[in-house]
């Protein structure tokens, strides 16, 4: 039971930290792509 709970927590940690990291990295790249447009 504890092991299953730990595995469930670990899976959520992986999903949520990966998504957060994706959001931050995505922001940097999206802004880099749009830099010329923002500059105008």
């Amino acid at each position, binding site marked *: 039971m504890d092991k299953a709970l730990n595995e469930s927590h670990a899976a959520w940690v992986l999903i949520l930290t990966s998504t957060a990291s994706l959001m931050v990295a995505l922001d940097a790249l999206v802004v880099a*792509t749009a830099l010329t447009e923002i500059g105008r």
Partner: protein
Amino acid sequence: MTASVAGDRFGRRRIFVAGMGVFVVASAACALAPGIGWLIAARAVQGVGAAIIMPLALAQLGTAFPPERRAWAFGIYSSVTALSSVLGPVVGGVITQDLTWPWIFWLNAPIGILVASLSVRRIPESFGPRAGIDFLGLVTVTCGVLGLVWALMRGNPAGWTSAETLSSLTLGLLLIALFIAWELRAKAPMIPMHLFRLRIFSAGNAAMFLLNATVMGTLFFMAQFQVAVLGQSPLAAGLRMLPWGIALAVVAPQAGALARRLGEAGVVSLGFLLQALGFAAMALIAKPDLAYAAMIAPMVAAGAGFAMAIPIVQKAVVGAVAASEIGKASGTLSTIRQLGGVFGVAIAVAVFALIGGRATPQSFARGFAGANGILALLSLAGAVVALWLSREAIGDTQASQAAAEAPAGSD
């Protein structure tokens, strides 16, 4: 790094969620910015949010998985993060072409709110050893880095021997020296210097610095090159960067298996070499009438090289320290990564401005080639640094454990 210490002390999940809040609010401020000054200020606050999120994501990941499953977890984490390299340029292109640029920043709001609310409900709270917050370290390193970056950015317009450049460079170097001297003596240092006695930790951080420096340096110019020199629309520029992102997303999950066959040092070094090859080729072919097909192989090489190296470096650094020091190690790695990105862009911009400029497509192409050339050299330096990642992990971890237990006050 300060966020990492705060996470150890007040709860990693709590500070992670707070970082998400800062990032989302600052993103909204960016979207609503009435002028460039406001946008820059809001973007700086957004950077603070990102600087809180990234080390705590790594620290929570490092503690949620046992050592034997960490390589797998970091591989997944890196692969998901790598999706940004596929999605980022395309999403950026679509938004700037079909919507308006503020939508770039609104994009973060639903994702951030969803992750924050689910984190509160699904992630258990965790703590690390309690330590004070090192304000003097924070001020000296921030001002020192600002001085160095200022000198790099102003070197060309103001002159490399001008009083402005030389004084900011000198001040930056002095403050960095002061920072290191203070960190060696501080009771609760921002960056725990004893960890740098671990060869894998030091080499991993140096490799991370160079990896992020090179990738941020090239990404800063790649889309601009496509728009300003090759005359592409923002969306077409984004789509044309897909080979880099696809190579990254495909190769990153295979990095762990490659490391088992070639060793961590071998894979990271090979990754840097591939990346150097890609940048060098791009430097050689960059010109205003460049055919897109010629850019594909260099982009694939650079993307695959980066993807081979990044998860292995993360895993090696976190795995090199004792469990009680994972928070500090993640914070240090994240700080070094951010610094690498800042210096990479600053160096690439300095070389771009020295060799070329934005006046004409020809001068932009010259500058872009120069920037890629210097990034290729930095990648070669990374290939050498990576050789120090060779296996010594068990001894290193034991040394880290001993060092962690030496000072009183750990949890």
